[in-house]
């Protein structure tokens, strides 16, 4: 029983990492149709922010806390730069954004290599986040994972609230639902796009900060993670935050359970088969934005 519970928590924590990564994608990909393959490098930018801040600040806990907003801004600005220079020209060609941002990701990786060196860099985690929490005598969960879970949930809550209640959020939704109409109604769609991209990219930066607690910090740290994160957004339904959340956790739990009973390689194949099967049933994902236009 303890085993099942701890494995369940593992699944949820895998889901939380996926969710943090997918959250930014659900904005840039889900709301704007941009397939940003450089999302992984924006994550790396967030992680390197922690590294740089720790060079300046001594306290591991303090630097981590400060890193959260700083990484958000750093990755966000990087994202805006990509949007302004390249993606802006490609809104009519979403598939091409995939290729272009892949190129961006190659270049960013090499920049990281040239600036920070090819080997992984080391960051210090506050001691409170390297240990574990004893829920019962047997059930031990890792405090860094709890932190990431909380961070992911806070980010989802903030994003949901932001989209629902703030004027910017309403504008984002208006542009997503009908770009032409929004433009005609006097919305500066270009500015809204840039802001959306800023937030989506900034969320990648936050994911990067969180990942320093559990994974390596290097030029290619993000690449391995984003294919799965894209799947989460696709299966959740494009433009559907609740879908992203549900699927991230479901996928995490399924993966951890299959992995526990079989092997990682079998698990990855099974997860793929499950996803194809799922898309047979719901080709537009778990939740669909129903409009009268042809989907």
């Amino acid at each position, binding site marked *: 029983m303890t085993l099942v519970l701890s494995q369940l928590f593992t699944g949820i924590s895998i889901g939380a990492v996926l969710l943090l990564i997918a959250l930014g994608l659900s904005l840039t990909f889900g709301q704007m149709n941009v397939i940003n393959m450089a999302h992984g490098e924006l994550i790396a930018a967030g992680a390197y922010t922690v590294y740089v801040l720790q060079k300046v600040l001594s306290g591991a806990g303090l630097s981590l806390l400060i890193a959260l907003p700083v990484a958000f801004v750093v990755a966000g600005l990087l994202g805006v730069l990509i949007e302004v220079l390249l993606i802006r020209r490609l809104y009519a060609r979403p598939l091409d954004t995939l*290729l272009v941002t892949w190129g961006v990701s190659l270049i960013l990786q090499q920049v990281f290599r040239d600036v920070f060196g090819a080997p992984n860099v080391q960051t210090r985690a506050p001691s409170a986040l390297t240990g574990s929490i004893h829920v019962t005598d047997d059930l031990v969960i890792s405090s860094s994972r709890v932190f990431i879970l909380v961070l992911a949930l806070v980010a989802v809550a903030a994003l949901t609230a932001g989209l629902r209640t703030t004027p910017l959020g309403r504008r984002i939704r208006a542009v997503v639902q009908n770009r032409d109409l929004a433009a005609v109604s006097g919305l500066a769609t270009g500015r809204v796009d840039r802001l959306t991209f800023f937030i989506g990219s900034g969320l990648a930066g936050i994911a990067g900060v969180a990942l320093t607690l559990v994974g390596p910090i290097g030029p290619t740290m993000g690449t391995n993670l984003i294919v799965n994160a894209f799947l989460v957004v696709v299966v959740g339904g494009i433009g559907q935050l609740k879908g992203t959340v549900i699927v991230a956790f479901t996928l995490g739990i399924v993966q951890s359970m299959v992995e526990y009973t079989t092997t990682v390689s079998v698990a990855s194949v099974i997860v793929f088969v499950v996803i*194809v099967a799922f898309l047979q049933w719901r080709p537009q994902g778990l939740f669909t934005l129903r409009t009268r236009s042809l*989907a």
Partner: protein
Amino acid sequence: MTTLQDPVIAPDPTIQPATRRFGAGTGSRAVIGFGLAAVALFGLAPVVLGDFRLGLLAKYLCLAIVAVGIGLAWGRGGMLTLGQGVFFGLGGYAMAMHLKLTDAGPGQLPDFMQLYGQLDTLPWWWKPFASPAFALAATVLLPMLVALLLGLLIFRRRVRGAYFAILSQALCAALAIFLIGQQGTTGGTNGLTDIQGFFGYDLNDPLNRRTVYFVVAAALLAVLGIAWQLMRSRYGELLVAVRDGEERVRFLGYDPANVKLVAYVVAAGMAGLAGALFVPAVGIISPAMIGVVPSIEFVIGVAVGGRAGLVGPALGAIAVAWARTALSERLPSAWTYFEGLLFILPVVFLPGGLASLAVLLRRRTAKKEVAA
């Protein structure tokens, strides 16, 4: 408002018209073109190139074969196939399995199975590959069959655009991880290496390696011929129609899934063929050729050369592969920047690829002529 604009994937305005594209010329002139290409590949290259460079060219031509298929599926069909590594790999493994079995000799196990698998008998799914006919057929038919099954599932359910691209990427990742996991029977990350013979011919003999080059060059010409016929046929026109207005085609009584399926399956067959030829040309096939990264890299040459044309993709693939060899020899880290720019610049600023540059130049000269 009902619009026919697919909300996820709007039709790509930058793709050039299906007509007036070179490579789809009228019969006799195209024959001349193919003839000249044949002369260059069979006459010129073997004379001016030494063994080593000719071997490299054989490798590039393999990549060009994949690119022709991608050009058909993506440029004409609008399906960004980021999963060609899977079909390339299937073709390559089918070929390599046969060659490994012939190398080992009848009744013997390939070397790596004894080393890493500790197997006493051949796994059942290896057995048919001992037959050259089966293996040869499998190099093309196996990828096509997989593409057919996958395509039926995907296109019937109208999974397309970004969904399709991401799904095919995930397939690559899954297959590569799976192959790596089965080290005893697939060679794991090492893949199948150390291939000595090609249907009885010793690959260590430089003369035989030249012959492999000729086989690859002939295959490229054949593949170009097939793509040419498909593009100029009524089917080719229909494929462009499906690319630009999948729903509209539906209202004309067609099932677009079937139209796309044909291009997808043909492209998979071409990738399989390329994989099969890659094995004797390079001497190795490994999961590293299947994963997400190589699959995207297959596309880059197509984007650079011009996705919608016939020769653009092949030309682009060869050029990019050559640039990689040339640049990475001298400036390894600069190559990464350059490769990044190769993805960015043509796609953003020259979506028709280098081929459209040729068209553009031609138009400009035509205008000047008119003005003068």
